């Protein structure tokens, strides 16, 4: 949708344009947000603007695990209370949020920032596999838990990691792949059902 510049002021237009560049926000949503902010107290707009600015200025990648961090180390690597014998390998920082939400895992993480995807030209050098190997070489890690997505790319990445990590004598495990909670068996696909059957457990 084109916004007619003569009908609104420059700063309103500009914000609408910038907001509509965000993922999932179309021109109408951008317009709604803009006019909401126009009427909102100054304080709210200021906090929002500062939050956005500090996002790019104050965050960096953790030097150990490549999670998003405020300082050199992310809160998880920094805490010192985590079990440093285990590393959980995930594709993106958001995956750590999901894992932390369950609150069971007490080990460390490693963020690959992607998965191997040959058809898009993403190979093992384009994600942080080399850094993972370096990290494992002089550490006391005894288990690497691979938590890449159960997609073709994630599976491929996990098989690759297994291949390069197991020569170091470190145990490599993969998150179980099976039936998600709340679904119905009849709709399960062959791969999922096969894995679920292979990974069945005593009750």
């Amino acid at each position, binding site marked *: 949708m084109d916004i007619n510049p003569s009908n609104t002021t420059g700063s309103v237009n500009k914000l609408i344009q910038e907001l509509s560049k965000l993922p999932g926000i179309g021109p109408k949503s951008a317009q709604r947000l803009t006019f909401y902010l126009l009427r909102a107290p100054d304080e709210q707009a200021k906090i929002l603007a500062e939050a956005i600015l500090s996002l790019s200025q104050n965050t960096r990648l953790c030097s150990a695990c490549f999670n998003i961090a405020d300082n050199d180390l992310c809160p998880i690597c920094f805490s010192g209370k985590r079990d440093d014998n285990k590393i959980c390998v995930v594709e993106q920082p958001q995956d750590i949020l999901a894992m932390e939400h369950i609150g069971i895992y007490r080990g460390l993480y490693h963020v690959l920032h992607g998965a191997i995807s040959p*058809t898009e*030209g993403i190979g093992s050098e384009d994600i942080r596999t080399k850094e993972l190997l370096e990290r494992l070489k002089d550490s006391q890690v005894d288990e690497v838990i691979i938590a890449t997505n159960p997609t*073709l790319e994630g599976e491929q990445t996990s098989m690759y990691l297994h291949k390069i990590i197991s020569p170091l004598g470190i145990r490599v495990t993969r998150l179980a792949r099976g039936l998600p909670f709340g679904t119905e068996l009849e709709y399960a*696909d*062959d*791969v999922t059902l096969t894995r679920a059957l292979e990974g069945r457990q005593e009750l």
Partner: protein
Amino acid sequence: MTKPRNYKTEAIIIKKTKLGEADRILTFYTPHLGKIQAVAKGVRRPRSKMSGHLELLTHSLVPLARGRNLDIVTGSQTINGFLAIKSSLELISYALYIIELINKFTIDNVENYPLFKLLLETLKQLDRDCNNELVLRFFELHLLSYVGYRPQLRHCVLCHSPLEQASLSFSPKAGGILCHDCKNSQSPAYSISLNSLKLLKLLQECDFETVNQLEVRPQSNYEIEWIIRNYIRYLLEREIKSIAWLDAIRRQNREG
């Protein structure tokens, strides 16, 4: 002919792209509609009933509904999930190369039934994990035939003289073999041994049953792979992205 409001087709998933929060745009290769694209809604949610049936390298039965822009996938049932391929790093790399070639060499909505058969048969062969390199060469050669770039191997492409034994070469530009006299007129031309030429001709004529029984020296395979790869690169005018990964995996396997 306009498509019906709802229709159903067999399909092999050859490409997927993320769309919005939980959707994907999928590219299917189908027996009678050729290459088509469709939106699969909600397949990136863990509880999606369709997601496992719509992963890359899956042969599925897919019902679709006509959409305003792209058609919408309304369900999916796996026919063959190619489990062996998906459990092997090496086989996945081969298979991804195959679907990338299919995607690059075809355009939307053009039926090519022999090509669908070739794709399906090749994936079935890879799933059996036997003579994979030659299966790949077989696929490449027949793909080229089905899309109209069949390499000319019987006689010299330029002067049509029968091919003598001495110093033959393959010219991507001419699309076939050049005899000794013509080889300097087209560059680049890659020299090809008589054995490799025989292998190319055999692969062009035979079926998968023969391929499975063939035993070929690695050297011959390298030679024809090199020639076909250069021919494909010339035709597409770009690199096939998954080749780099395929090469890396094979190099690793050779090193141990």
